[in-house]
Structure formats: C-alpha cells, structure tokens
C-alpha cells in the first residue's frame, strides 16, 4: 500500500515537473524575455579566502553594469542575485541548477575557484544558459571542458604563465621551484608555467603541493629554500599567496631567491602591504590606475566598497554589460541567440579595448605585466603597480590552433 502511494506520488511529481519545463520553453519562444525579466546571477566565494577578490564587490560591480545599461531591458526589469559557492564544486553546481531550473536566472557571472567553475560550466551547457566566467583561472574552461554557452572572460592559467613565466626567465630567472595549491587551479597553473619556463630555456627543480587554506606555510617554504632555485613560483591565490609571501619574508628566502606570484590580485598586495610585497612581478588583466576611464570606474567602485576593484570585479562589470548589450541586440534572452551575438561583437568598455570572444569561448584582450612598487614610490592610496609591459592580446592567450576544445574546427 505504502509503496503504491509512493509510486503514485512520484508520477504526479514527474508530470507536474514536465509541464513546467514545457511551459518555460514555450515562453522563451514566444516572449522576448523568459520570465519577463533578465536575471543576472553572481556566484562566488562570499566570505572565504577568495572573498576580497570577487565576493560582495562583484555583486556591486554587476549592479553598476545594470545601472549603466539603464536598469531596464525592453521595459522589463533587470535583477541581480547573488550566491556563495563556498569554493565547493557540489555547492556551486547545485546552486546553478536551482537558479536555472526554478529561479529563472539567465546568466551566471564570476565563479572563482577552478573546480567550481568547471562544475558550473557543465550545468550551463546542460541547461543551455549563458555562463561568463571572470573569476576562475583554469584554461580547461576553453579547452577540454569548453561548451557553446561558456565564455572565459578575464584571464586564464595560460595567460598568467605566459606573462609572468616568460618575462622572468627572460630577465635571468632560469631555475624554478613551485609552491602549488593542491587542486585543479594550482595544478593547471603549475604545469602551464613549467611548460613556459622550459620552452624559454629555464629549468624546473621541483614542486611542493599544499592544501587549500593551509594554516602554515613555513614547512613548504623550507623545502622551496633547500631546492636552491632562483625563482619560487607561487601557484596559489588569495589568502594562501598572502601567507606564503609573509612566511617567505620571515624565513629570509627573499634574500637569495625571488618570489613570483603567478596569480596576484590587487587585494592581495593591499593586504600584504608594499613593504612585504615590493618587487614582485605579476600578470594583471586590468588595473584601476591605467587611464582616466579606469580611474573613473575605480573611484566610483571605491565610493561603494571602500576599496579599489580587482580585475575580477572589473571583469564582472564588463561581462554583465556585454551580456546585456547582446540580449538587446538579439532581441531575446534565448541563450543560443545571445551567444551568437557575443561571439561576433567586439568588446569595447572600461575593461577591454577591441576584445573579442573566440570559437572556444576565450575572450581575448591585452594583458599587463606589472611590478609591485616600492613603498617610497607609491604616491597615493592603492598606487601599487608599475606597468612593465603590455602583452598584446594575440600573444597573451593560448593560440586557437593549440586549443583542445571540440568546438574549434581544425
């Protein structure tokens, strides 16, 4: 009896779910906007070790984009919603599913932490909704894991490795040792940088893998020290990078060896202070103090968040604006139509000049090699970076011919 009831209930539930899905699909075809509104979902680490890179600042950036777009799409509202994925792929994927299935979210932006980004990209592909990633680094998003609905917007491990790795080897840093965060991102960054180092004539002496948000880095740094490598490549991010740099200073590594932050954000430098961070080389996708337009955006953001935007946050702004413009041009929020517009329109805004999205989903734009200023060279708050070199878009990212993405025609 009980079993029969259960079967009946399940059948009813399935039937109800089926009609709901059909109804939604029908609406998207007839109406201009699904759910009579555009919903932008900002998903990232809201309170963990990456929260200062994106976090609530990214939500604010998305809201700024909506405001700059005019706040309405075809006279209908544009809403920004936010969620914390806690750096856990299962949490991120479940939230993405919920957003797409029941909340009518049209696009997800940000999503730092490579493992979560890959999980969300899979959901976006399955549900045929747009996913523009600005926060995660793994180049897998436009290689093995690429799909028609995912755009990788701000940077990736290839660009970081290519920028910082090549520049340092060229200036004489031939031998390398890696301190690597033990998950998808760290491994990708390490292997990409190691490849660049070897290709440029350098040598990799070894690597040590540390758990995410390790409480103490001294043991790992001691191993890096005994490797006698000239350069210690920090293939980690956020709080992990900060604590690595701090411990490296304390243990005197910086006297004989040079640290290379393979992924450093302006928030990390701010937190470390210039005294500790000075001289480090890093690859940046955007810097607030680059020109009048970026400065204006930076100050507007500062008004609200009391800190300058990271390149991830600026990327979220630009990605949201790009998406909204594409919906407007396509006349619908149907993901296929929007993606078609995104892939053939140049991106020109505060974040990128003449940027464009390739077949594999990679947004290609100039990158910047920066050096952290000495305390005495910093003239005003957040004056942290010295531009060493502009890496032209074509050189900065992996050539399309090398992409392992199945959508790229060979």
């Amino acid at each position: 009896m009980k079993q029969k009831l259960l079967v009946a209930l399940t059948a009813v539930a399935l039937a109800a779910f089926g009609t709901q899905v059909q109804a939604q699909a029908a609406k998207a075809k007839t109406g201009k906007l699904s759910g009579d509104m555009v919903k932008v979902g900002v998903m990232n680490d809201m309170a963990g070790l990456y929260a200062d890179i994106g976090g609530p600042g990214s939500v604010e950036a998305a809201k700024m984009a909506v405001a700059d777009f005019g706040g309405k799409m075809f006279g209908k509202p544009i809403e920004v919603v936010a969620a914390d994925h806690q750096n856990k792929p299962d949490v991120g994927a479940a939230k993405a599913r919920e957003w797409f299935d029941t909340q009518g979210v049209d696009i997800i932006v940000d999503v730092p932490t490579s493992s979560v980004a890959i999980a969300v990209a899979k959901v976006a592909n399955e549900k045929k909704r747009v996913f523009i990633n600005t926060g995660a680094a793994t180049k897998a998003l436009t290689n093995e894991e690429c799909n028609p609905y995912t755009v990788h917007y701000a940077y990736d491990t290839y660009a970081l490795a290519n920028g910082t790795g090549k520049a340092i080897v060229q200036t004489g840093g031939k031998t390398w040792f890696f301190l690597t965060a033990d998950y998808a991102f760290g491994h990708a960054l390490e292997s990409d940088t190691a490849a660049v180092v070897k290709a440029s004539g350098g040598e990799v002496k070894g690597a040590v893998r540390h758990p995410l948000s390790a409480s103490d880095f001294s043991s790992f740094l001691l191993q890096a020290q005994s490797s006698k490598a000239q350069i210690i490549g920090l293939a980690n991010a956020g709080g992990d990078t900060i604590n690595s740099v701090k411990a490296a200073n304390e243990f005197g590594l910086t006297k004989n060896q040079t640290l290379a932050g393979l992924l450093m954000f302006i928030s990390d430098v701010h937190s470390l202070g210039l005294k500790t961070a000075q001289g480090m080389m890093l690859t940046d996708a955007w810097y607030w103090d680059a020109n009048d337009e970026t400065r204006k955006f930076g100050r507007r953001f500062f008004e609200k968040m009391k800190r300058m935007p990271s390149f991830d946050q600026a990327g979220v702004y630009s990605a949201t604006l790009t998406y909204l413009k594409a919906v407007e041009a396509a006349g619908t929020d149907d993901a296929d139509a929007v993606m078609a517009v995104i892939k053939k329109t140049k991106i020109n805004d505060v974040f990128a000049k003449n940027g464009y999205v390739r077949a594999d989903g990679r947004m290609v734009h100039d990158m910047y090699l920066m050096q952290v200023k000495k305390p005495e060279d910093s003239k005003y708050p957040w004056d942290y970076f010295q531009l060493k070199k502009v890496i032209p878009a074509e050189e900065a990212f992996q050539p399309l011919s090398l992409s392992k993405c199945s959508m790229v025609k060979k």
Partner: protein
Amino acid sequence: MSEIFGIPMQAFMGQLMLGLVNGSFYAMLSLGLAVIFGMLNIINFAHGALYMVGAFTAWLGLTYLGVGYWQGLLLAPLCVGAFGVLIERSMLHWLYKLDHLYGLLLTFGLALVLEGLFTNIFGVSGQPYTIPDELSGAFNLGFMFLPKYRAWVIVASLGVCFATWFMIEKTRLGAYLRAATENPSLTQAFGINVPVMVTLTYGFGCALAGFAGVLAAPAIQVSPLMGSNLIIVVFAVVVIGGMGSILGSILTGIGLGVIEGLTKVFYPEASSTVVFITMAIVLMIRPAGLFGKEK
C-alpha cells in the same frame, strides 16, 4: 650529507623544528579547550574565533592606540578573557543542566557571529602585524634558518603550558578546581564558591586562546578566518589527547605538530589529513584518547 628515509638530514631537522612551532600553537589552544571541557563539560567551539579575536585585539591596539607587542601580549588575553567571562555569565551559564550539545551549538553559533562580524568590518584578506624589532631577524642553526620570532613562540607557549599545568596540578587553587570538577556539590558544601570558579575557568580558557592569537599575529596574516582554519585540528588534538586531560593535550599538541611537519616532507598532499588519520587510529586502540580515563 647524511639522509633519513631519502630526505636530507638538514631538511628533516628543519621540518622537525617547524613542527615544534606549530605544535606549540596546537598545545596552547587545545590546553584551553581541555581546561574548559574538564571544568564545564562545554565543548567550546568558539575557541578558534576567540583566538582570532585575540589577534585582532592586538592588531587594533597596535594600529589605533599604539599599544606595542609586549603590552598587547598581556592586554589582549585579558580582554578576551573578560569577554569569555561575559559569555559565560550571560549565556553559557544557563546551559549546564542541559545536554552537551546545547553548549556546543551555542559556542558554534558564537564563532560564526564573531567571524561574520570581523569579516564584514575587515574583509578576509587580513591585516599585517609587523614582528617587533627585538624579535625580527633569525638564528642560523646550521641546519636551518630559524626566525627569532618562531623560537620565541616555542619558548612562550611552552612556558604558558607549563605554568597552567603547574597551577592546576600543584597548587591549592588547582586542587579546588579539580575537586569542583570531580564533585561540584560536595566541593560547594566545603564552602568553595564553585560558580565563580567555573566562570573564571572559562575566562582563563578563553584568555589562553587570546594569548595564542597574539602570538600568531606577527607570524601569519591577522584574518577573520585564521581561527576556523585551525580549530578543527585543535579539536582532533584534544580528542587524541583524551578529552579534558591537561598534560594529554599539551603533549599531543606538540606531538601532532611534529607528525604534521614530517608529513609535509614525505607526502605534503596528506598534511591536512594526517592528524585525522592519527585520530582514527588512536580512537580505535584507545577510545578515551591517549591520556584520557575511561569513565
């Protein structure tokens, strides 16, 4: 150069030393937990947050009031201890008659509130606390380059651990404390004010967390999450040592720091799990922990 299990002697000794430094932190934090559990039967999940508050108090003092490191080392634990007394009097106090679980839930909630508050105000990347001039620089031990500050951490925490152990095991006050733990109503019948002792014990436990926080401030970034990264390991230490055992938590803390340090040489990927593997093994062989007594 001689080698141990394929690792150069030099690296091995270095890691042993660092294990000792981390172990000192574990020892001091688990000591506070053990004292609180032993006296109050409260599993103090707010311990990590109090450690963080200690570090932040020192940082705030230095940044805004010009209170130096040495004064901070004294004042911050006092503040955190006073805060602990406040928590005990206003909240925990009402839960003694109930199941352990309520105390655990309350303190866990407190930890979340504290971490949330500090994250909201200061962000997660943390604030730098510079090492005091007297302790900057390093000793060259031949096999490694040991920052003076880390050496000081070992000395200070072992000193505090020893003093606590001595006070509880060897003094009259400690005897009262132990008696009150064993049989509160009988102890009260002898004219000893047990509720006040309980309050002070909780305050003292919290002060120990605050002290550890100040010690940690110059070594790692002062960040709202510094406690939650550490607290789970510290709980494992307490369980391995035997809940409520003072000597147990000190020795286990140092021991596990060393085990963890060595794991970082042989198989770094496992360094975050080795403590829990040890815990599982110990609990299989001795369910009450290494130094715990079966009840």
